[in-house]
């Protein structure tokens, strides 16, 4: 009898903890004004109804609250994330993980077209999370969208691993900080993966090569 009770409690504990966590997070929405809270809850309901993860939306809400953002701005940003998540799932498919959807939503918000996301998914079944995180960052740092998208895509198609993308990002970031033009930095660093990088100057949006002058 006691054993059965313990087993029941053990089984129920995670669900109870999750409920408590969810309740605790929802309670934090009370820090929003009633209108904004209602708007956020409406977006969360829509996400649940369409089978999208609500965690990125709730996370964006809590982030905005913690950063003391204006309530209307928080609602606006959460709505943007919702739309991006919906578009990301269309591009990546229903089996995409929460992390993948969140990364894809970030890439869409950075300007990556949805068709490119679909190409990432069709090229490989493995997680697209890290390549898309790196891609969104590169665009944010000033690499032209097409240059960044095509370079990362070529590496992805070539079988680059998460570590390769993070290594590429480190190199590019360092070069940009050192004064290199962002597009040039990416193209040069990508050549460190000779079997994977696109041929120089052939990727759409590739920046013109610097003119060389004789001394």
């Amino acid at each position, binding site marked *: 009898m006691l054993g059965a009770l313990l087993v029941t409690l053990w089984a129920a504990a995670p669900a109870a903890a999750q409920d408590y966590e969810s309740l605790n997070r929802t309670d934090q929405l009370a820090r929003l004004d009633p209108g904004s809270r209602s708007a956020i809850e409406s977006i969360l309901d829509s996400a649940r109804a369409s089978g999208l993860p609500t965690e990125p939306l709730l996370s964006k809400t809590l982030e905005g609250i913690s950063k003391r953002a204006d309530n209307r701005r928080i609602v606006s*940003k959460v709505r943007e994330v919702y739309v991006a998540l919906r578009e990301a799932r269309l591009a990546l498919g229903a089996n995409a993980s929460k992390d993948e959807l969140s990364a894809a939503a970030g890439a869409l918000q950075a300007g990556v077209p949805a068709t490119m996301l679909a190409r990432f998914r069709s090229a490989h079944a493995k997680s697209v999370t890290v390549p898309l995180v790196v891609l969104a960052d590169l665009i944010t740092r000033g690499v032209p969208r097409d240059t960044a998208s095509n370079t990362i895509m070529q590496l992805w198609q070539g079988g680059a691993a998460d570590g390769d993308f993070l290594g590429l990002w480190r190199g590019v970031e*360092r070069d940009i900080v050192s004064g290199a033009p962002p597009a040039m930095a990416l193209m040069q660093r990508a050549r460190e993966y000779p079997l994977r990088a696109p041929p120089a100057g052939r990727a759409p949006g590739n920046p013109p090569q610097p003119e060389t002058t004789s001394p």
Partner: protein
Amino acid sequence: MPLRKPYAALSLALSLLAPRGAALAQVASQVEAGASLTTRDAVVPASVFTVTPGLSYSGEYGSVSARGAMWYADQQWQLADGALHGTLVSPTIYGVRAELLGNASRAFYDRELQNDQVDLQTRIHLLLKEKGGIWIGGGLARPWRVAVASSVDVRGGGAWTTLYGATVSGNFTNFYFTKVAQSTDTAESAQFCGASTAIAPANLARIASFSREAPRTDCHRQSQFSDLEASVHYAVKFLEITAQSGMRFGSAFDVGVSSRHWAAGTATAWLNDRVAAIAGGGRQPSNPARGLPARNYFSLGMMLAYWPIPKGTVPVEPITASVRSFDAHALKSGDVRITLRVGGVERVELMGDFTDWSALVMTRRGRDLWEITVPMNLGVHQINVRLDDGPWLPPPGMPTRKDGFNGEVGMLVVNP
């Protein structure tokens, strides 16, 4: 060649004022005190009690530091070693950076053995990726109150890298100068001086000013020697360890047997964020350019340090520049230990999607190490850090994303 301090310290905090508008700049102060035992060949071992205040200012384009030492020996206090250092740093372009270094220092071994020196050097650094670099440089040093009749030409180069969390460096330095040798110095000196010309009259007065008794059997000699030195610095949690070892190359005239090889080490254990215990010891080579002999030392002491951050200053640069490193390490417990190194701040907070964007205060572990352990699933997480109630910023070393609230978040990838 910088003198290794042959003592450690017990310290006191100092309050300092920092210039307005320089939040990126860091001001640090400390007072060290401790006991030191030194031995030299053919000299009675000496133990002294030392008190050493010091302060430094580091900005974006340079730094200045000063420190002095008071020694208590023979039942009286003496103003002993002192040094003033300044560095100007150029912006880094394509991994290349230039530095101009100037030093003025006073070395004090005892009442009969002390002198002063100013030196100026330039260096070119080439940063190789983020885990190493090489440099070459050269300059001049001008010692006083020592029998060196010329400036000391200093040329050298070195390389550094990080291995398993430790910083490893190797340096090669060549010293070239005209020495006023005495035939009584060594057998080689006697032979050399016996065959050489006498000192030029113009230099006699100068030599007389170097020493109380100008020797009559002096001669000029072009001296040259080279040092090859390797050092390791390892900081883990509250412990910092520095070890160095070196070899000296040169003729028997310039390099005595006692300075052909040397090694030394220092361990600093931070008891809390202000107090540290220090122990050090080893062999310090001679410095022929300054007439200082080799010696052994052992020291034990305490240090109290203080890094005040003035309120109301306006950052002139993103303060993330001062976060030197960020590391996240997944533990077997399922938690992730996050550490970052940032100096000159009083408070570091962290938040992210894994904390439901609630700010957590990180714990200081030593001089500039901040640590926190948080539950975090594997995968990609969004993260921000905040220094001294400043803006929320992405940590260095990871991709970022705009947060939609006029800021950015770091995208932290947690692997098993």
